């Protein structure tokens, strides 16, 4: 077992965090494409994944943005047809998520 303060562990965590951050720009655009095409189930799954993983890797704000998008798609999907107001909210939250993902991704380069 390795002590959590071990520099080697810190290096591993930092490397994993950097890899995750670098992937975010592409992932955010892929999520946008899913939402734009109306593939709500897949879009929600991606938002849900980011909701969980972003915080694990230390990107709390991104996790919050992903949670908001996950919830808004979930609420809209409960209705047979997605209302215009729900679509507008999803669009806003998607923009916030993309902006945050790109900010984090730029910081990792």
């Amino acid at each position, binding site marked *: 077992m390795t002590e959590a303060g071990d520099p080697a562990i810190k290096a591993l965590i930092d490397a994993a965090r950097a890899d995750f951050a670098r992937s975010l720009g592409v992932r955010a655009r892929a999520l946008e494409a899913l939402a734009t095409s109306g593939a709500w189930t897949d879009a929600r799954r991606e938002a849900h*994944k980011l909701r969980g993983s972003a915080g694990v890797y230390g990107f709390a704000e991104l996790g919050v943005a992903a949670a908001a998008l996950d919830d808004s798609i979930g609420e809209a999907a409960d209705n047979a047809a997605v209302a215009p107001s729900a679509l507008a909210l999803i669009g806003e939250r998607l923009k916030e998520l993309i902006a945050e993902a790109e900010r984090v991704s730029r910081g990792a380069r």
Partner: protein
Amino acid sequence: MKTVPTPAPVPPLLLPPLRTILVVDDDADIRRALRLSLERIGGFCVALAGSAEEALAEASRAPPDLVLLDVSMPGTDGPATLAALRKAAGTERVPVVFCTAASGGQELARLCSLGALGVITKPFDLVGLPDRVRAMFAKALG
């Protein structure tokens, strides 16, 4: 006057060790994080599965001491995977801890009522997670 000797204290029940953990999550980033946390920090032997089907095959091949099981997976979800583990030979009693991004009290209570040792919510702390898992395992056997 004859004194009655104080009986020696009963030694604590020897718990089976927690050595191997099967991590089940469809998200590769979460699997990577959990392997880093549980293996490199926690010192456990970690096997990974990306789906219920992979989990059942791996658990059948090499029954783990504990399963850390994502709730929301495409196809067969976490609760259904737990039910399948309970029906399969060799994994009927394997302890399971759910892992979920959901945080509502009702949902967490529901997951515990399915027979899991406990629930870990995402995001979790990579450094503190191994001790939390040990504590859940020990509490369940205590």
